[in-house]
């Protein structure tokens, strides 16, 4: 290849909002449920039914817009996007085209190459569609409207990104910001965050953008990265061979590692957008907007600074803990209950991360409560349980948010503080292991470890190893004398 090319990327990101109910009716917006159980006449498009906007959707949209430094429109409208498809019960989607809620913002990203701002063209509210299930065995299609009417935000960036690193950094930034706002859990795999990549290439130094394609079906950061590399290569090869890029929508097949054309601009549909007459324009009250601004939470950069000041824990721990709003919340709430930031951080950094990884879970999936973690820490501090028992208890907490006090009680894991029982055990171990006793006396310090282990075994793990150690040494000292 003789020429050098620059890649130009813009993103359309869809985020499913974490509202309790749908955008235009009172049905639960929660994921899952048996097919067509989270439905009503409104979200199944029954004749005569009407949409009523869920105010929480507007709040989230404004909160995300403010966090992304957007202008919040004082006057915005919903529009109908008309197209026939069975997953869409009305055969039009209620969205925003002409007057979206947020415009002209931007977020700062950081890659190895440094910091830069990615512009945000607009953010708008819209409704999700249902789900089609193609039953090839029965040769028919079934439709589940549980997702129909689940609120979405579409965040449209400007074509400001130049490579996959920037795209990933931008998505990470959005995800963190939105999670911190509690507006969405932003899971790519589950589809609560979806990104469509608009990509074009142009000769380096060229002023005009090249013809772009839109890539869909990107379900992980890995897929996004691979799709960007693949599409960049494909377009450059086309141009090098004297061909031209066709403006089209392409679908990424992550198994094959390649994309194929879905539809070109020529057969693009005419959506016949027009303002939805069922929904009056939204007028944003200035005082309300001020309240929303005040209610913006502490985002990650500020949180990191605060942690560095308030808590005596390593920067590395701060980095990991604040990377998830959920993790940070658990950290802060636990510390509030039991103090000891270092110990709380250790539980999160070691045992929690290990179990998350082993179970293929995200921090957002954590089930144990700060209350229970604080109890566990207090119990170990009070030597009611030893550290190995604590790990066992923590696993039960991680698994099902078990109450550590009850669990220890039920499983009989409490450290035995009964001096006579411990003495009995020590006596037995010393009598049964003359060789080790002999070694210790001859100055082999290591032998004490074996004896402690044997005593713990005798106690079925329910003793404080420090206490055992101390007692053994005293006993052996006495024998010497």
């Amino acid at each position, binding site marked *: 290849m003789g020429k050098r090319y620059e890649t130009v990327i813009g993103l359309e990101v869809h985020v499913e909002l974490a509202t309790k109910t749908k955008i235009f009716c009172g049905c639960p917006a929660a994921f899952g449920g048996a097919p067509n159980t989270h439905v009503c*006449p409104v979200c*199944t*498009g*029954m*004749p*005569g*039914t*009407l*949409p*009523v*906007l869920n105010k929480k959707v507007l709040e989230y949209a404004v909160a995300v817009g403010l966090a992304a430094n957007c202008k919040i429109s004082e006057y915005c409208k919903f529009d*109908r996007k*008309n197209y*026939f498809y*069975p997953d869409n*019960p*009305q*055969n*039009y989607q209620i969205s925003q085209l002409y007057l979206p809620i947020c415009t002209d913002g931007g977020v700062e990203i950081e890659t190895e190459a440094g910091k830069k701002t990615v512009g945000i063209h607009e953010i708008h509210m819209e409704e999700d569609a249902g789900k089609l299930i193609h039953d090839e065995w029965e040769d028919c*299609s079934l*439709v589940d409207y549980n997702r129909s009417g689940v609120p979405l935000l579409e965040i449209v960036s400007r074509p400001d990104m130049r490579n996959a690193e920037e795209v990933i950094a931008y998505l990470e930034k959005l995800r963190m910001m939105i999670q911190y706002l509690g507006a969405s859990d932003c899971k790519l795999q589950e589809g609560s965050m979806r990104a469509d990549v608009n990509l074009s290439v142009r000769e380096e130094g060229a002023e005009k953008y090249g013809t772009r394609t839109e890539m869909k079906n990107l379900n992980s950061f890995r897929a996004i990265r691979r799709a960007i590399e693949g599409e960049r290569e494909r377009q450059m090869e086309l141009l090098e061979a004297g061909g031209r890029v066709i403006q089209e929508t392409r679908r990424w097949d992550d198994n094959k590692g390649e994309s194929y054309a879905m539809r070109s601009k020529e057969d693009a549909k*005419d959506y*016949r*957008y*027009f303002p939805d*007459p*069922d*929904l*009056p324009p939204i007028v944003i009250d200035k005082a309300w907007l001020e309240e929303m601004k005040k209610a913006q939470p502490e985002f990650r950069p500020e949180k990191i600074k605060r942690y560095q000041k308030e808590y005596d824990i390593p920067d590395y721990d701060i980095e990991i803990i604040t990377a998830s709003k959920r993790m940070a919340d658990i950290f802060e709430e636990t510390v509030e209950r039991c103090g000891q930031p270092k110990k709380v951080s250790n539980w999160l950094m070691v045992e929690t991360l290990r179990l998350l990884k082993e179970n293929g879970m995200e921090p957002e999936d954590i089930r144990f409560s700060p209350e229970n973690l604080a109890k566990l820490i207090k119990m170990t501090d009070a030597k009611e349980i030893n550290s190995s028992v604590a790990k066992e208890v923590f696993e039960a907490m991680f698994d099902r948010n078990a109450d550590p006090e009850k669990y220890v009680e039920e499983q009989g894991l409490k450290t035995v503080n009964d001096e006579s029982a411990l003495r009995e055990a020590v006596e037995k171990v010393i009598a049964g292991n003359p060789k080790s006793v002999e070694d210790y006396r001859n100055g082999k310090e290591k032998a004490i470890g074996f004896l402690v282990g044997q005593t713990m075994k005798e106690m079925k793990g329910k003793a404080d190893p420090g206490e055992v150690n101390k007692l053994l040494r005293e006993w052996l000292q006495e024998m010497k004398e």
Partner: protein
Amino acid sequence: MELLEWTALELSAKIKTGEIKARDAVLAALERIEAGEGIYHCYITVDAEGALRRAEEVQRRMDGGELSGPLSGVPVAVKDNICTEGLLTTCASKMLGNFVPAYSAEAVRRLEEAGAVILGKTNMDEFAMGSTTETSAYGETRNPWDIGRVPGGSSGGSAAAVAAEECFLALGSDTGGSIRQPAAFCGVVGIKPTYGTVSRYGLVAYGSSLDQIGPIGRNVSDCAAMLEVITSYDKKDSTSINREDTDFTAALTDDVEGMRIGLPKDYMGDGLDREVREAVLEAANVLAGRGALVEEFDLGLAEYAIPAYYTIASAEASSNLERFDGVKYGYRAAEYEGLHSMYKRSRSEGFGPEVKRRIMLGSFVLSSGYYDAYYLKALKVKALIKKAFDEAFAKYDLILGPAAPTTAPVLGESLADPLQMYLGDIYTVSANLAGLPGISIPCGKNSEGLPIGLQMMGDCFQEKKMIRAAYAYEKARGTFGRPTLASGTDGAGRGVCAEGEGGKKSGKTI
């Protein structure tokens, strides 16, 4: 059948005093329906069993002192584009020939709560698109004053049912005159309220920004009472308005002294039937004689109302009717190959020609490249029309004019020339474009004995002024009279409910 000649308010008063039972009123209406339907075909569905059951229930509640409102025990009819839980709601279309809603419209819910007894669902133009009730998939309705003529539309079944005494009151819907024009043709009273007054929840949408449900009745008092019952602020309808001053029956005072009434020259010129013109001028004189100040003025923009209306209504309709696709409910073609063929065939077979014409018109004006030139321009015209009315209402309390340029046309005449039919809506569409309330009230008969309708329009939220003037006019006018009602089968051999699919469903409880 003296009972059937009473007004709704007279009837409920007699039920209240125990003079008659709610059941008697329903039985009388059902008997009248049985006798008249073979000729008039006002109803698509008659729910005799349900109505009798409801009458007993209402009677119990009245006897127990729970119910005492002015509509208690009154048999009413509901236009078939207004959803009734458990009762077939077809919109006079083959597309919804099997549609039984799982919910009632808010207006219906309020009527039932007030003790009204629903007799059945009335015929109409398919999806309320038409001005004659001839576009119904279940056969046309005939005008009780002359069965060779249309009752008007689209709420023709409701207006004819009131005129034929097959109910005491009826709900209609008005997108461009669909309550006021059939009321005029059938010699009854109809009110189109200010946009946002009656909840649209459960009204199958035609032109969402224009649609309003309203009453059709024998006189102004009955209509005012029904409007009072169905008016509500409904959170299920985002365009519903929480308004005060909805005690419409309080406006039934015989007093127009000093009321300023404007008569737009634009409404009295070319295209207006001579006899209609004379009747409207005579009505204006009557009001002037009662102390109102009536004067002619130039409203302006009247010629743009029809194109703006048909552009906006069709645009919204093209989108509103997309949900009828054969997937979830309603008609699905028997044979098709694949999804697109299923859509195409279901919609081609399920919709009639007038509905298709408006869907195509609406799709065209919204399509890219034409949106600005048609739809957006129509919205601008709409805003200008609203402004013209604002200026007029700065000077006048009411605007007076004809409800329609002619009396009821002969069957078949209108559909032969749709454009001419559209132009017939010239005096009514402006109220919908500007969101204003309007009332149509009989103001005489032409030389053939056909009723002529007078229209009054008020400023937004000024129903009470309008009702006051209409009531005063009605009092001054005196009894309007009833059509000579026929019974049995007509010359064409139309037996009771024998024609059309809807007819077959009549008399059954769904």
